[in-house]
């Protein structure tokens, strides 16, 4: 998947406001690291479509009912926010998208070497890039599957705890794209998003 990030978005994430003036030293490191970060990103994604078996307003049960023996799985989401989002949907897509570990390795290496401004730029490009990639996945699904999706929603937001990552992992097997979860449900590499988006209706 090819994903790019505009300079404007990266600068905005770095905190550039309307009144900000960029000095030469910053422009130099920004241009170098912006190009470098885009070249380093390796966007990978896994996605799965599950039917919504139950949605009682607090808890949603998603199930793969295609009979594909590789993916018979049940995913439980305990969240009123997600429940509201998926109201009226018969199915939902789960996905995990990552910008890869090389980018995060560079952020860490730069920070370790005391190059925190450069690290911050790479980090910001990575954050924007993975957000853009997640949007791209949704657009891709909408076109290839000819569906309209609700907004995407990720664990750790609203009342959906980060432990939701583990539930999504059951259906996605995120290790296939090199993503791991630790005991606090944090993902490595850092620039990774998991999300759910409901299928609104067939086009």
């Amino acid at each position: 998947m090819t994903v790019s990030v505009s300079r404007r978005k990266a600068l905005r994430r770095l905190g550039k406001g309307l009144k900000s003036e960029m000095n030469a030293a910053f422009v130099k490191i920004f241009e170098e690291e912006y190009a470098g970060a885009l070249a380093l990103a390796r966007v990978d994604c896994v996605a799965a479509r599950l039917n919504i078996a139950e949605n009682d307003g607090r808890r949603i049960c998603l199930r793969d009912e295609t009979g594909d023996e590789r993916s018979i799985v049940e995913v439980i989401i305990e969240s009123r926010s997600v429940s509201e989002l998926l109201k009226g949907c018969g199915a939902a897509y789960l996905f995990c998208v990552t910008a890869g570990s090389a980018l995060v390795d560079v952020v860490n290496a730069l920070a370790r070497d005391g190059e925190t401004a450069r690290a911050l730029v790479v980090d910001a490009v990575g954050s924007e890039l993975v957000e853009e990639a997640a949007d791209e996945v949704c657009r891709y699904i909408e076109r290839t599957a000819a569906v309209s999706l609700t907004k995407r929603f990720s664990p750790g937001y609203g009342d959906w705890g980060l432990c939701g990552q583990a539930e999504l992992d059951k259906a996605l097997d995120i290790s296939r794209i090199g993503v791991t979860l630790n005991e606090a449900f944090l993902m490595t590499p850092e620039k990774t998003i998991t999300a759910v988006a409901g299928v609104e209706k067939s086009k």
Partner: protein
Amino acid sequence: MKREEFKKLAFEKVLVIDGAMGTVIQSLGLDADGAPEGIVLENPDILKKVHDAYIEAGADIILTDTFGGSPIRLAEYGLEGKTEEINRRAVEIVRSSAGGKTLAGASVGPSGAFLEPIGRVTFDEAYKNFFLQGRGLAAGKPDLVIFETFSDIREIKAAIIGVRDALEEAGLDIPLIAQMTFTEDGRTVTGTDPESFAVVMEALRVDGIGVNCSVGPAEMLPVVKALAGATELPISVEPNAGLPSLENGRAVFKLTPEDFKPWVGQFLEAGASLIGSCCGTTPEFTKVIAEGAKGFRPKPRAGHNYLRLAGRTKAVSFKSGSAVRPIGERINPAGRKVLKAQLVEGKMELVRSEAAAQEKAGAAALDVNISAYKVDEKELMARAVKTVQAASSLPILIDNSNPAVVEAALKEIEGKALINSVSGETEKMETLLPLALRYGAGVIGIALDENGIPETVDGRLAVARKICSAAEKAEFPLKDLVLDALVLSVSTGPEKTAVTLETLKKIKSDLGRQTVLGVSNVSYGLPERPALNGAFLTAALEAGLDLPIVDPLDEAIRNSIFSFNLLKGADPGGKEYIAEMTSRARPEGVSETAAGAMEKDVRKNLSPLERLKRIIISGEKDSAPEGVQAALESGNEALVIVNEALVPAMSEVGRLFNDKAYFLPQVLLSAEAMKAAFEMLRDRLDSDGTGGTKGTVVIATVKGDVHDLGKNIVITLLESHGYRVIDLGKSVPAENVLDAAVNEKAFCIALSSLMTTTMGEMKVIAELARAKSVRIPIIVGGAVVTKSYADEIGALYGKDAIEAVEVVGKISK
């Protein structure tokens, strides 16, 4: 309808394709919630009504209700067991409406599942999915098949191969029209541009290519124009009724048939010869199209009689006489120990970095050779192809002649590859040429056969002729066949090099084919290989070499190519030559701008302390030591430099940040410059044994949390303010934090956490500190941490790195 008949018909008249199916079905009152393809079995009469309405409106081609008729898609509704029946019946319904007067077309859409790496579906599974749908369609005997709304070039390849196999199994030789869907920016969602699409589809021998869905006519017209420039095949176009807008969760299309009218002529002028419409349209639109197309005769367009290859997002042309572009040879373990060792271990790091480096160096395509001792070449080649495609956008040369290995690679190829190579051995020609045809690849024919490498020019030409004949017999397009005259090391005798060069000339003059050489073989076994490679490359280019397989990073090779292109008039104005040579002369770094030059002038007249201050404010870390040195040499004490240059500079940076003129990375750059300056003064300031610092802060990201950029930013700022900082890293247990704070005599403990799941650890540390009577103030911060949480656990709080430094400052006082 036979393919040949279609080819003729498509340039005799405009063929009108029908419009949307779902929109019309809904208008006839049918519930849209079930499987759209279920209607084929449940309500065939309503489908017939839709088909009849489109025929009445003037459609020449009506399409089956089988867009989602592949088993993976039907499985979403539990209908996969009825794949054959649905597809066969759908064609029968269309045929009954068509009545032999209108063309009964079969529609095939994407599976809705994802191919690897996004999804789990492999190429073979996608192939099977479409083969099964194709089998059902073939049973109904359609006149043609239109593939619609594909976004992934690899999926449409699998669909075409699968459906074609099913049609051939049923003895049908009917036209296939391939359509992808392009976004407003003129590419598919997965990045494929119209030219790459055209190159890949021509190689797959489809009979028409086109674009449908996603956007309206205005956004689609540029795509049609681009396709017309990229292919001689008939072009089809099916726009939506404008860009959809979402109203109450439903897509609404606002274009009316009247609005659509002016676009018909524009599409025809642009080169389209099949026009229909997609989402949001009705038979009224078809009527407008049929009226607009009446009497128009599509103009045939010239084809491309030279090799074109493609990656997923980029097509590359190798036109003789145009600028020569190198093909990267570096992904090859021959003579490269580290790469070989990595391949044996199954590692792809070097493959990835070599792919990226060669693309950056201007390679037009990448040769991929993974032949290493004791490896599963099939598996390794497939992985190498995937790796190269992820690291670069360039087309690939599959450097292997084992059919099983080549096929494994071809299944992974996202564009159009070149098989390197097919010899004149009968068995190789009989297996590899059909593979190239099946998967849509080009072929390098190499001048050797069962009898080895011919020693004479005539001998090599005879083998080349044999390969050309075999290609013609297999109906392989000769423009996709390039010939390798074969290079041997000059150490085996210079007369052999002369044979190579003469064979090159003869291949061009006698056979009219394009040429390729693995140039570096010429220097095998000799010292200073680049010099020889460069000289031989120039001679070979002069003899008619089109595709040089070389090291694109090598200076001698680059000299040869850039000079040759300039001398042959393939580099207008010498732009590329000049850019290449001047970039070598200039040292790396930023060019000096006018503003930069002015600043230098201003600084010349400043005192050393003022100059240092400006260096810090501007965040010029590299200039900071020099600035400090100048200040010291002009007689300033270290403390004076700190108090009159460094501290005021950071105060000014703080003011700029508060005024929103600076944002965080600029503050950090200044802090880094400050730290560099401070380091130079540390020994001179170390009068109280604290290393010249304001005291020690112990800092950590708490246990379980892996995020440490925020913590590192705080460290940079603290150090720039003269504190000694002990960084314990990330995911640090409570005991370690307290032990370090006590041992290092810290006056403050700083803790960072980004996530709700880990910030509880801050409380653990605060409580443990109380239990152990460690009375060192704790400051906490991080994305989810709030002031009230800090209060609750008895800690201080910094909302961001800058506030954290202020709070630490207050504690230190």
